[in-house]
């Protein structure tokens, strides 16, 4: 169920250049699933006005804590990065439909592909897949070394490969360059990142089951305002989908890329 809650900041730190890891505590954590997101009001004033959508990166139901990883770039996320331990944050969530963990065959292998700030939701996903006995191969692309994060955390979960555009960490190039070289064997893939990456993956693995997480500018975040609409392909019976409430995760082939 979607709820609004004033969550408490329990930790916040800069884990890479302008990349922050924020842990919040509250009741709504109990309802969270991997791939879902929260809509955060970063200020009590009208500046900035709109909430910011951020993916759920780590869920700890025992402590009631959720971790978000975000890039502090614009006005809103910069304000969020200034929140101190003990501060309250107005959070609406959990929102949307996340990654379906159940569809991966038990004992099988899942390929996780992330680009930049699309990597965070794959962390909770990898954890939950591992817990179900599914092996994960993780391929992450970043612009440059200084914005990479969570190498250690991901390494404990599965084979982890980094790619950077400038070659400062891992292979030089894009995730698709590395995938071409690795030729990984897997049953299902999950991806979150920029459109060109998602498009390339659909073309790369036409016969594999796959799930893609999308980003779109949002207003309400709950399906009421039609801000975040994407066109669908002819293979679906819907004319459009809303990223906030029908997504952000869709099976491969649903959204027109």
């Amino acid at each position, binding site marked *: 169920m979607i709820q609004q809650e004033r969550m408490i900041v329990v930790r916040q730190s800069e884990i890479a250049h302008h990349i922050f890891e924020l842990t919040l505590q509250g009741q709504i954590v109990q309802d969270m699933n991997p791939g879902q997101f929260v809509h955060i009001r970063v200020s009590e004033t009208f500046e900035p006005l709109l*909430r910011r959508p951020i993916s759920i990166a780590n869920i700890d139901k025992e402590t009631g804590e959720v971790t978000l990883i975000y890039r502090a770039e614009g006005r809103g996320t910069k304000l969020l990065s200034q929140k101190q331990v003990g501060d309250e944050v107005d959070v609406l969530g959990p929102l949307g439909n996340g990654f379906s963990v159940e569809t991966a065959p038990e004992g099988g292998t899942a390929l996780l592909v992330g680009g930049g700030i699309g990597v965070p939701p794959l962390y909770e996903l990898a954890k939950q897949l591992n817990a179900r006995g599914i092996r994960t191969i993780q391929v992450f692309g970043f612009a440059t070394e200084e914005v990479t994060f969570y190498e250690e955390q991901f390494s404990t979960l599965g084979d982890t490969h980094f790619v950077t555009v400038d070659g400062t960490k891992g292979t030089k190039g894009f995730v698709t360059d590395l995938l071409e070289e690795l030729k990984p064997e897997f049953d299902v893939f999950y991806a979150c990142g920029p459109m060109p990456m998602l498009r390339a993956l659909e073309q790369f693995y036409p016969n594999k089951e796959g799930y893609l997480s999308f980003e779109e500018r949002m207003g*309400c975040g709950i399906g*009421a*305002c*039609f801000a*975040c609409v994407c066109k669908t392909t002819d293979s679906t019976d819907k004319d459009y989908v809303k990223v906030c409430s029908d997504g952000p995760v869709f099976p491969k082939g649903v959204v027109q890329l």
Partner: protein
Amino acid sequence: MRRLTIQLPGLELKNPIMPASGCFGFGKEYGGLYDLSKLGAIMIKATTVETRLGNPTPRVAETPAGMLNAIGLQNPGLEKVMANELPWLERFDVPIIANVAGTTTEDYVEVAKKISTAPNVKALELNISCPNVKHGGITFGTDPVVARELVEAVKAVSTVPVYVKLSPNVTDIVEIAKAVEAGGADGITMINTLIGMRLDERTGKPVIANGTGGLSGPAVKPVAIRMVYDVYKAVSIPIIGMGGVSCAQDVIDFMSAGASAVAVGTANFVDPFVCPNIIDALPAKLEELGVKHIKEIIGRSHR
């Protein structure tokens, strides 16, 4: 709560607060968060004859204390709204104001005729900010003669009172208000969004795919207040005011300027519980002002 009731043509309002069209869909999403029977009324998303898929994205952009939107009147179309959306809303004890849009007079007439027969639709709100294809795309709401004729045509077929939603993108909003009153409008709702543009800092190009968008949110409130204030002086039909409302004081301001009720748009995105929160906060506001019934403050700026 009797001190918040308001009677308007076709509408028995428990309180003067209602979500504005396009900011509340057809109620389902917010209905999952709180009991919609708490609201004075609900203004549903614009309905057109056919399904509308709307504009390309990005459709929204944040601006100082506001936002631009170019949704493009996306809606499932008259038939589906009648078959699915309105019946779903019947479970709540709340009057529905149906926002009607189109590109020709015939479109408006067709939607108005059918949608006014839905049992829970107690009033129509004509969105005259739409481009008129027969008049070179100039919006219905910018020409007093065109606006008046449209109201007359819709009044002839509607079985419920007709409110007209004025566009602020005109030289003289009072002239349009008088024209729609002369055309037989039962009330006025105002204001719709102000046309604006935001540029991308790096490329210098518009952020919104459509180029322009409608500005809403706290930033537009002074413009809206001034317009309600002027229109109130010029017409004798009631006004439902809106534009940047986000708290009980904003409601008091709009009603003081002359609105009989108030709609809340963009603020729903900021705080999904804003409408019930405002309703709960109003009695204390009245107490502060030493007012027994909220009706007493309508138009007090002019007294």
